[in-house]
């Protein structure tokens, strides 16, 4: 009994010595904690960025914590609301649609980076949405520049060539969908009736949003909004879509060949390219534009996110140093994450790099990255404001009415009323 106790004591002593030595070492080196939500995308790019930083700062370490996106947002919002900063990371990834909401509700929680970063080197629309009262708070990360991803082999069966998809309108796409359905029997697009991606893409492509630059609701009497609802209604009525529920069913639909295409953000490339057996069978065209709408273009945005430093961060200086020295300087880094993760950064000098000019065999040898960066430059900047979630949910609430061919003016009036009520 005695022997066992003393052995335990020895083990404990050794363990304690080990821990104290470790903590001495840890006190000198900084550990930067990062929160993000996708191990293959933003998490992987962060690891890559740090491996570059580590070359000059060998003692520092990084701890990339991956959450479910909704869970991360909930945790962040709950902690900021409680005012308890313990356990918050140094750097957090925030989706662009939510940026202003966080900045305006918890202003002092984030560190302004204006004095550390030359923001003229980033895409202007990304800088604008992280700016509040003249201070910019983010290191802009990926773009959500949209494209129309299609199975070139299946469209060829229906006699559609890639040229026919260049700079078209939604109504031309609907005609193409009818031809595809007739010849191949396959639906053109999977549509999740609980989603609002289509609305975000259509609105921004014409430089409009649920709110104007001052944050006022612009739903009623907004020709872009009306055109978007009418276009979506025509799209559904054409019988060329297939309903899906949730993300897995949605991406499963076009990656398994049950439908022939989708319109989405550039980040969808990673999901599509994960199916190596479909190499050479895909193409990307510009997003369709709204018919008969002033200012409507073929470039839009869906999603995208940026890195923010918390002002309570224990390693704040280190985090800023790391972000500015890699994310705001290293052109080579952006080539690597573009090739490996399909991450299209918004650091403008990176567009001159090699990877951006390369062609991609997966997409039939097209210079897809160059195309995407060309469209990126054409995205109209809009003010997402602080109520995008509320407006989305008001729009989605009217989808049964839109689907069943309801009166567009009544639908818009209902959305407008709900948004006004929810944003008072």
């Amino acid at each position, binding site marked *: 009994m005695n022997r066992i106790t003393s052995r335990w004591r020895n083990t404990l002593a050794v363990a304690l010595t080990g821990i104290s030595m470790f903590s001495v070492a840890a006190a000198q080196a900084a550990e930067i904690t990062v929160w993000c939500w996708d191990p293959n995308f933003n998490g992987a790019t962060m690891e890559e960025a740090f491996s570059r930083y580590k070359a000059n700062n060998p003692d520092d370490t990084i701890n990339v914590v991956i959450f479910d996106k909704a869970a991360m947002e909930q945790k962040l919002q709950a902690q900021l609301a409680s005012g308890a900063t313990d356990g918050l990371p140094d750097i957090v990834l925030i989706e662009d649609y939510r940026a202003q909401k966080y900045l305006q509700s918890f202003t002092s929680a984030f560190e302004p980076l204006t004095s550390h970063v030359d923001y003229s080197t980033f895409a202007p629309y990304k800088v604008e949405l992280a700016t509040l009262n003249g201070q910019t708070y983010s290191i802009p990360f990926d773009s959500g520049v949209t494209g129309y991803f299609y199975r070139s082999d299946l469209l060829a069966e229906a006699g559609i060539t890639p040229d026919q998809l260049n700079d078209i309108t939604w109504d031309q796409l609907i005609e193409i969908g009818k031809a595809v359905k007739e010849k191949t029997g396959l639906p053109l697009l999977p549509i999740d009736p*609980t989603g609002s991606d289509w609305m975000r893409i259509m609105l921004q492509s014409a430089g409009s949003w649920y709110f104007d630059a001052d944050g006022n609701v612009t739903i009623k009497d907004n020709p872009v909004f009306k055109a978007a609802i009418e276009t979506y209604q025509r799209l559904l009525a054409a019988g060329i879509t297939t309903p899906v529920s949730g993300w897995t069913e949605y991406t499963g639909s076009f990656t398994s060949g049950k439908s022939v295409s989708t319109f989405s953000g550039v980040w969808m490339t990673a999901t599509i390219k994960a199916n190596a057996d479909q190499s050479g069978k895909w193409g990307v065209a510009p997003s369709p534009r709204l018919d008969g709408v002033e200012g409507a273009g073929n470039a839009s945005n869906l999603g995208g996110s940026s890195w923010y430093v918390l002002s309570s961060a224990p390693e704040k200086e280190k985090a800023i140093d790391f972000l500015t020295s890699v994310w705001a300087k290293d052109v080579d880094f952006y080539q690597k994450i573009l090739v490996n993760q399909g991450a299209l950064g918004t650091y403008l000098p990176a567009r001159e790099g090699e990877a951006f000019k390369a062609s991609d065999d997966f997409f039939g040898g097209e210079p897809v990255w160059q195309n995407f960066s060309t469209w990126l430059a054409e995205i109209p900047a809009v003010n997402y404001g602080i109520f995008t*979630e509320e407006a989305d949910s008001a729009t989605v609430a009217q989808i049964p009415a839109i689907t069943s061919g309801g009166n567009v003016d009544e639908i818009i009036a209902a959305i407008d009323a709900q948004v006004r*009520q929810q944003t008072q």
Partner: protein
Amino acid sequence: MPALVLLGIFMVYPILWSLWMSFQVGRGMNFSFGGLANIIRLTQDTVFIRALTNTLLFLAVQVPVMLVLALLFANALNDSKLWGRGFFRTAIFLPCVTSLVAYSVIFKSIFAIDGIANQTLLALHLIADPINWLSDPFYARVVVILAITWRWTGYNMIFYLAAMQNIDRSIYEAAKIDGVPAWARFWYITVPMLKPVILFTSVISTIGTLQLFDEVNLLTMGGPSDATLTLSLYIYNLSFKFMPSFGYAATVSYVIVVLVGILSFIQFVAARDRRA
């Protein structure tokens, strides 16, 4: 005394604080006293009305169905001559101890467009086209009701089983000798004897359904178009998804408190009347 202090810190203080919160207006952490503004907002809020209607609909349909099922199962499994009743008891009880996320994922895959539910119905020629279970407002509600019924029936059944074991066997034997048929023994002996337990389970189930959150959040996210939005999910959206509006969220949660109070009171009164 320490117990009272703990109770004060962890029960009374948060309740009073949330009551104070429910009168605050503002965005995020910048709030100010708003008087009755939140209550006025409540009366004009179409989303709130929709969430309230959905919650009450789930309550009105699901709780009676579940309790009757639980009662019937309990009665069947209480039969000492039934072969393998230990197995059936466990099988029916098991859903309520399974992981919530796991069962939601399974329900989602069962009711996917090409899921087993549609495949079975198509194979039996009961439907001509696959049903879009989770994206159709009506069927999404059906799936949510099925899911919570599946999960909680066994839980209530255990209460009834336990109570049934306490009913003296001799009462049934006497009734049998007097020639009382099985259904009448169930209706006139078992059910009245279980009245306190039935009251207890209906109060518990009512509270549980009024707070319904997990299933709708994991299965449908309140969709399609708010058809399965419940009050709890709306509170969650107000606090964590939308522009944080903690004061208003607190007001909506007090609606649940009031509803629980009223419905429990009605159930107690109803049970008392029947006894008299």
